[in-house]
């Protein structure tokens, strides 16, 4: 019954969506003709840049001419950027930000998501395969030497998850001497090395694999971004989250290194959507569905070293 209702809802939203702005789909839809759910209401009110802001010869003009924003992102990050198996649409906070940025530049939320692995993001940006990277891309000074960061557009932090009933871990330092699971190529690895140098780290490629490894006792704890862990804990009651985040990970929008013009353009857009409430609505529509309470205060643009 639930799935029937859901399908009806999706269909209804699809009709509204189709009439509102046809062709929002990135072209990767598994169901031909199926449009987005939820995201479209959000994007209907999203701002579009003034023609004078699209400077001649700029990256923005190139994207506008192409008619599509190429985003380096993920398809397997729940609530952030995940492909919906029913509609084929990519949903989540990062995904919606990408669509809103596309609408700001092109006038339509047309994006193509290139599934970027975290080890290739810098290369994809520098060789121009993608225009922007929206993929929980933490701003660090080292990375800022390779890419330009607009933002931060969201601030998150690492948290520890353990199997329900596990004892002896209340803070990151307690991980010393224990086997800890972390996602390959996540900031969790340097963070664990710093706070618990004697911890042994095992890494797996994706979040579901890390979760499986935790449940199969390949490690006593799993260190990951809080938002992901909250989503996991909601789906899977056999794990629990310890305390509140112990790091601060400011996420930035990765741009080609040195493209100051485009960086300013994207930063101006971020300020605009923070001010008009679109940022908050986007959060409510994605992360806000599992995190209690009102949308947090968006981070100050340019407030982190490297941004």
């Amino acid at each position, binding site marked *: 019954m639930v799935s029937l209702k859901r399908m009806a809802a999706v269909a209804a939203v699809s009709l509204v969506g189709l009439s509102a702005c046809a062709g929002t789909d990135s072209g990767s839809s598994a169901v031909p003709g199926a449009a987005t759910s939820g995201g479209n209401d959000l994007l209907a009110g999203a701002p579009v840049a003034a023609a004078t802001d699209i400077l001649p010869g700029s990256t923005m003009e190139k994207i506008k001419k192409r008619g599509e924003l190429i985003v380096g992102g993920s398809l397997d990050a729940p609530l952030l950027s995940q492909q919906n198996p029913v509609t084929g649409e990519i949903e989540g906070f990062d995904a919606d930000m990408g669509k809103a940025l596309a609408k700001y530049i092109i006038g339509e939320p047309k994006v193509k998501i290139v599934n970027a692995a*975290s080890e290739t993001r810098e290369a994809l940006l520098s060789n121009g395969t993608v225009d922007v990277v929206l993929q929980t891309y933490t701003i660090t000074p*080292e990375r800022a030497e390779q890419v330009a960061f607009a933002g931060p557009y969201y601030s998150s932090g690492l948290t520890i998850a353990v199997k329900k009933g596990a004892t002896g871990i209340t803070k990151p330092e307690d991980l010393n001497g224990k086997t800890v699971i972390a996602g*390959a*190529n*996540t900031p969790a690895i340097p963070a664990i090395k710093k706070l618990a140098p004697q911890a042994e780290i095992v*890494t*797996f490629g994706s979040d579901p694999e890390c979760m499986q490894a935790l449940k*199969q006792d390949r490690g006593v704890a799993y260190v990951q971004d809080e938002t992901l862990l909250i989503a996991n804990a909601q789906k899977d009651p056999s794990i629990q989250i310890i305390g509140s985040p112990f790091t601060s990970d400011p996420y930035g929008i990765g741009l080609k290194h040195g493209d100051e013009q485009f960086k300013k353009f994207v930063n101006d857009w971020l300020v605009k959507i923070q001010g008009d409430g679109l940022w908050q609505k986007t959060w409510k529509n994605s992360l806000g569905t599992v995190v209690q309470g009102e949308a947090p205060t968006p981070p100050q643009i340019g407030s982190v070293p490297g941004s």
Partner: protein
Amino acid sequence: MSAFLDHLPEFWEGLIVTLQLIAASFAGAVVVGFVITAMRVSPVGVLRGIGTAYVETFQNLPLLVLLVLAVFGLPEIGIKASLLVTAVVVIALYEAAYIAEALRSGVNSIAVGQGEAARALGLTFGQSLRHVVLPQALRTVIQPMGNIFIALTMNTALAGAVGVVDLTAAANRVNLMEAQPIPIFVGAGLAYALIAACVGLVTGRLERRLVMVR
């Protein structure tokens, strides 16, 4: 290049794990490969069937699928080993199928008369395989075995995807901090190329020394 040189200790540890993976899984693959080859050329129909099924199964499944299945699937039925051991066993079983096929082609290249002569001398199947057929067969397949060894070397990189911190995984971790994929992965790539070049050199030497002029 400094991003690579600053993290030599991490790369070194990764390289050691990679070499362990290569040595252990190649040794295992050779042993299993010999057994499977013996089964495939044996006079017993059931054994031939098992040998064929083994080769077909392992050649037709991607190694990554096997690794993920072994690491995450086996604990579900109560079989759990360390990640390194699991990776070695899976890579060995997988590559054994290729080694068995190479060996079998070597066996097929031996003239039927050799086997018949061995039998005429009163050797059993095992003895004729051990003393007459396989020593000759091995000499004809040194180059293909070398190629399989090189492929195995490259395939060990997949162990990084299931938690083993090998050279590839170490490179990934360093890149996470340094964000300089090009020097880091070029460095790791050179290490792999060096291993492969050594294997090529050894097999080339061996082949020249052992080749049979027919």
